[in-house]
């Protein structure tokens, strides 16, 4: 009896604790789903007395912020996504398949190096390099810097996917008469595609949410991405217009959500099986 009571109390305490912990993450999401539709939104989570799209109308009137979202952020995040995915796949394939002495060391060295030299700490030299290259205030600068930062981890992850392909797949294609490029294209690429999708989404999300790099490397308002443009919903005194910030934030999260759903529906984050061993 005593033990049962202790068990019940223990479970209750656990669930209360878990709920408190979860609410810490859930509340901002709840706020994000209701505040944009409330013309009197504050920082507290409250159902609006009257649902309205007025906030969105005012956000869409801000052409600077909308261009940042539908043009600049898409160019920068999309560009870095493609570059990271393609480069990581090719590099991982080469590191996995070519007989390079110390390829293991290269892989781990890259990952270690990239985690030691974090973006913030390296910002000054990065700025100087970009400046020397004459790329300040260009989309390309943002794309290249993000790609450089994400690539090591991306190569590391992709290498695991490539390593999992038995070499006999490629050898049998070679014997069947395929050229090495054809083998890569017909056999390796389709098999690692789920891995590429993981990398693509991950890279896109990282760039989409990145603030510091575009903030430092870009000058003209026409090239600012959404992460920076969100400041246009602050008053000159530096306080946010909560209603508009909420509406813009919701718009800002949608592409990432849609990308994830699309990839999951189209390719799925899954593996193929089929070798008998």
């Amino acid at each position, binding site marked *: 009896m005593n033990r049962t009571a202790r068990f019940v109390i223990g479970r209750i305490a656990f669930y209360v604790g878990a709920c408190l912990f979860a609410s810490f993450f859930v509340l901002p999401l709840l706020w994000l789903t209701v505040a944009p539709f409330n013309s009197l939104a504050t920082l507290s989570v409250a159902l609006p007395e009257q649902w309205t799209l007025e906030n969105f109308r005012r956000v869409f009137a801000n052409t600077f912020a909308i261009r940042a979202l539908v043009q600049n952020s898409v160019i920068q995040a999309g560009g870095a996504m493609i570059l990271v995915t393609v480069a990581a796949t090719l590099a991982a394939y080469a590191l996995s398949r070519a007989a390079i002495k110390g390829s293991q060391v290269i892989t781990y060295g890259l990952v270690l190096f990239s985690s030691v030299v974090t973006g913030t700490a390296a910002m000054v030299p990065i700025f100087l390099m970009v400046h020397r290259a004459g790329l300040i205030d260009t989309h390309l600068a943002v794309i290249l810097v993000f790609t450089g930062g994400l690539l090591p981890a991306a190569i590391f992850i992709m290498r695991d996917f490539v390593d999992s392909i038995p070499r006999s*797949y490629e050898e*049998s294609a*070679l014997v*069947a*008469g395929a050229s090495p490029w054809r083998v890569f294209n017909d056999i390796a690429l*389709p*098999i690692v595609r789920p891995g590429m999708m993981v990398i693509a989404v991950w890279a896109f999300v990282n760039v989409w949410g990145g603030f510091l790099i575009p903030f430092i490397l870009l000058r003209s308002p026409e090239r600012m991405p959404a992460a920076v443009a969100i400041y246009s919903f602050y008053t000159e005194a530096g306080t946010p217009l909560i209603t508009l910030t909420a509406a813009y934030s919701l718009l800002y999260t949608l592409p990432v959500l849609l990308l994830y759903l699309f990839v999951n529906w189209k390719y799925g984050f899954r593996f193929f099986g*089929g070798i*008998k061993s």
Partner: protein
Amino acid sequence: MAGVSFRGVSKAFGSVVAVDDVSYDIHDGEFVCLLGPSGCGKTTTLRLIAGLEQPTGGTIHIGDADVTMVAPKGRDIGMVFQDYALYPHMTISENIAYPLKVRGISKEDRAKRAAEVAAHLQIGNLLERRPGQISGGQQQRTSVARAVVHKPQVFLFDEPLSNLDAKLRLEARGFLKHLQQELGVTAVYVTHDQAEAMALADRIAVMDGGRIVQMAPPLEVYHRPATTFVANFLGSPPMNLLPVTIERTATHTRFVAPTFSIDADEWSGRLKDRVEHGEEVFLGVRPEHLGVGREGDPWTMKGELYAVEPLGPETLVTLSVGDALATLRIFGDEPPEVEGTVHATIDRANLRLFRSSGERIELG
């Protein structure tokens, strides 16, 4: 179709020599098995034919063409891998047709040809499935279908049966032999299973330590093994090898072991100039060439009964003879009645002699 020739081919991986100065000819349409323990260089030899490895010395010809440095795609071969290596993202039909796709054959033509080959190999009903959805035996047939679909000059098999269970393996073995004879294509087949090599091959090449120890038709390899290594590797149980010392006088010849001695006077002529007095040799005799005899019979050795294993159509009787074991294979439904000390009679027509270094002594 074409034969394959190796001339002084070597392949080293760093300081490890996998294939060591190998020369041989495989004739057009012949079925050759490369047989040996793991690490003997048989798979490397096969990969050299396929072009998946480049030799570090020597030349390789397929037909009249020197292909030593030719990439796999220029060699016109079909290969079945141990793990089948079916592409998991393609259907069975696409898998089979892949060599045709690479050759730029139109989609309809290659689907048609894949269907023909699949039907012939009795997997015609699986064309739309994926490799993960079919059984091991079906995967194996798919892999064979992919290797034959473009009618290659040479067929290569890398232990294709080792992933099948025992029953399927026998069935697939018969099927492969039938298919090879029907197509008449030169085939090179790697295996470590001596029974598979015996059953399939026109000739067996037994490999050890990167070299070909013996290359001959199965029955010759079985009955006249070139070395004790071959004698030991082929046959289940393998050939009995009993160490004896030669005793020769002007009038007598004997094989002497600690526990028995055999009067071999009638072989005096055959052994003349081939063995010396006091030389240590091995008597090599297959289990089926030993019979249960009586004390005093000629060509008999004495041993203590060690084990009797009835197998149905035959019985294996093992004797301990000094430090060695000798196995007798007695055919017949009933196990022989033996106990205690057993005298085993050697069928001397099938007795082989090997030097202590291992090579067989060619008798006169």
